[in-house]
């Protein structure tokens, strides 16, 4: 294949009018065909360039279909009728499965430990993210299976031990520690001579303690999902993992195309890619929401009782969503740096609630409006209020706004209808509450209240 020249012909309108089989197959896999616009963005861009310059160009070509990356060299010769293509050195390479990122990226996962062990599974490194549970003392040199009580999977197997035998990566190894249930994943490490030197990976806190499930017991029936297997925690976790990777890849690729980072493409193509990225982000948000829903509805769900400051968390939320507000010209009046409201609640979960409230306020506020965030103390409650100048919510809607899948009649792709439901469940799991106060045309005020803590 490498020695062969693959030829094709493009007309002046950018349609592929003739092509050898490999090129035509690629065009068809990309959803197009003969006498249709070239659907390979990189090649299309090179053709446009050659036509614009009125001269031959030879460049490396990168393309991908559903199962392989393609690298080749293309020579484009423009003429009065269009352009001729000659593609050589056509190499296909299977798409590499995403490797575990280096520790630097691993540790960005909240509530996780990064760990490394030697070839005999003895721990040589254990570090915690800032919000992770405290590290056990005396972990140095201890066996991984001593530090983490390994739990078998549904088939009675241990992913880490199988990976040790194969010297390969693993994921989804459920473990228990003295403190909490976690899930381990790891990448096999090798030195320059090819000798296996151990594993490096992540230990992520499982959202809830695994309830002991009777063997062969059917999935619990969930009021939202009925008897769908999504109410089965194992199935849910697998689906969550299976969807998140491909969706992230789709979003990243679509954003690359939409942002035209590799050079200009047709404006409508860029817009389609932007739509794909947008839809991908929506789906990813839905996966997040469903995973959250599954976790918080599990019996025994309990949030951590961290010492937090609602003022600090509100400013963090503004920092994270400030750009989004700026895009709509919305001004956010955030608590001042000396506005404090010490409270007790789980840092990550409270931030999640605030991001939801602020995100909604931005989404449903008119352009060039203002959003206020205020922190306060009311007796033994610390409160944070997010107020906007949106269209407001009438009394009937207020009664259902915290219901599952309630979108108040909206049909846009902005949300899953689970955000406020999850936010209130989380608030209540932290001995707090989430309330709304609004009238049509007067904007909405959402108030999160949590147990107050005396300032130091």
């Amino acid at each position, binding site marked *: 294949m490498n020695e062969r020249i693959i030829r094709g012909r493009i007309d002046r309108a950018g349609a592929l009018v003739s092509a050898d089989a490999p090129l035509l197959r690629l065009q068809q896999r990309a959803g197009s065909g003969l006498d249709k616009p070239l659907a390979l963005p990189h090649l299309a861009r090179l053709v446009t360039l050659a036509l614009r310059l009125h001269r031959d160009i030879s460049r490396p070509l990168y393309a991908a279909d559903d199962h392989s990356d393609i690298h080749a060299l293309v020579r484009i010769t423009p003429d009065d009728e269009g352009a001729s293509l000659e593609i050589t050195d056509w190499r296909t390479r299977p798409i590499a499965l995403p490797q575990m990122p280096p520790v*630097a990226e691993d*540790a960005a996962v909240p509530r996780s430990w990064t760990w490394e062990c*030697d070839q005999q599974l003895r721990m040589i490194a254990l570090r915690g993210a800032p919000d992770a549970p405290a590290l056990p003392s005396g972990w140095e040199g201890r066996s991984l299976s001593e530090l983490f009580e390994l739990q078998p999977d549904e088939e009675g197997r241990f992913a880490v031990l199988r990976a040790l035998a194969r*010297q390969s990566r693993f994921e989804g190894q459920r473990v228990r520690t003295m403190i909490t249930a976690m899930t381990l994943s790891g990448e096999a490490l090798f030195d*320059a001579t090819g*000798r*296996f030197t151990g594993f490096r990976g992540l230990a992520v806190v499982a959202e809830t303690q695994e309830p002991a499930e009777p063997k062969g017991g059917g999935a619990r029936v969930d009021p939202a999902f009925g008897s769908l297997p999504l109410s089965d925690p194992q199935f849910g976790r697998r689906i969550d993992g299976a969807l998140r990777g491909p969706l992230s890849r789709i979003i990243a690729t679509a954003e690359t195309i939409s942002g035209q980072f590799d050079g200009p493409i047709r404006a409508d193509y860029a817009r389609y890619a932007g739509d794909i990225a947008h839809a991908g982000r929506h789906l990813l948000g839905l996966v997040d929401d469903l995973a959250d829903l599954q976790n918080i509805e599990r019996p025994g769900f309990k949030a951590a009782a961290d010492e937090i400051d609602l003022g600090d968390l509100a400013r963090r939320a503004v920092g994270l969503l400030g750009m989004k507000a700026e895009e709509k010209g919305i001004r956010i009046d955030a608590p001042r740096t000396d506005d404090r409201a010490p409270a007790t609640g789980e840092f990550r979960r409270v931030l999640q609630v605030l991001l939801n409230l602020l995100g909604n306020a931005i989404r449903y506020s008119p352009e060039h409006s203002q959003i206020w965030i205020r922190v306060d103390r009311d007796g033994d409650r610390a409160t944070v209020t997010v107020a906007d100048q949106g269209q407001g919510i009438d009394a009937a809607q207020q009664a259902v706004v915290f219901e599952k899948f309630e979108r108040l009649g909206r049909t846009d792709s902005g949300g899953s209808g689970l955000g406020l439901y999850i936010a209130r469940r989380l608030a209540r799991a932290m001995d707090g509450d989430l309330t709304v106060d609004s009238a049509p045309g007067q904007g909405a005020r959402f108030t999160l209240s949590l147990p107050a803590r005396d300032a130091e």
Partner: protein
Amino acid sequence: MLLSPTRMNESAFSHGIDPPSPTLSARLRELADYLAAPMAGRLTEEQRALSLGIARRLVSDVAARLDHDIDAARLWDEWLVRGLPRTSRLAGICFARAEEHRWREQSAQQASPSPVSPEAGTAVAHEPADEPGPSDAERAYLALRIADRRRFDAFGNPALAIADLDADIFQGLLLDIAAWRLAEVSKDQKRAAALGDAVRAATEAQTSDGGITQAGVAYAEILGSERLADAAAAAIAGHDWPTLVALAAAVHRRAYDDMALALLTAETGALPSLLAPLRIDHAALAPLEASLAMLPARAAGESDLAGLPAGRDR
């Protein structure tokens, strides 16, 4: 009234007028340094960023040892504006760690072997022994790896372990940070008094910790002269650079950081003599020479900068 170009240049600098801004002053200093040695290799952006990150993490770690309530980010921001204290000492250790990290990263990226040849490493001195429990050498090697992994933060970024710090640098930093903190909590006499106790406690705790230098010494002692050469050769073959540096530091009775910088800045021709106490076969040095030669912007002699192979002695 015409001035010669030389005269004009002098007139721009020599009237005893202070430069109008610290930025201009810093740039003029930089330019003067450049003019004094135009051919000298300067810091690359990567070296600068790595060293700065290592210094920042060090300051955060030391601050946390002193008082967990210290806002390390604010401290760092203020020091960035005012200039860091003890720069000459910090520069040496941060640069050594940054260069070591660059070396290891490059080595890991270029080596990445296919994991199919388990027999390749059978001669390694720290391979598990047949006896049921770990041998002394194994335990010492494990301790060395643990000491090495302490030289990264939770995100995998290079850092300096407090246990590896020279006591003077550690104490000096503690005092500088305590002075900064004192200005913050001076109204709270109880907290201000606690700072002094915290400095003493942190200083005592540091001396009781063992760092990578000590771990290397312990490992070298357990290996003894017979097995030292094999272990060092295995470390070179496996691109296990921290083990090599630690063993070399142990036989030279130098600190790990010093030894790392000595290796990283050695001309290729000087490597055999530098590692002579390890009694490694010259042929076994080839991967080390190749790895160092490929490291860009290394602060080594001319022959290495040109990427020449070993052989200055021929």
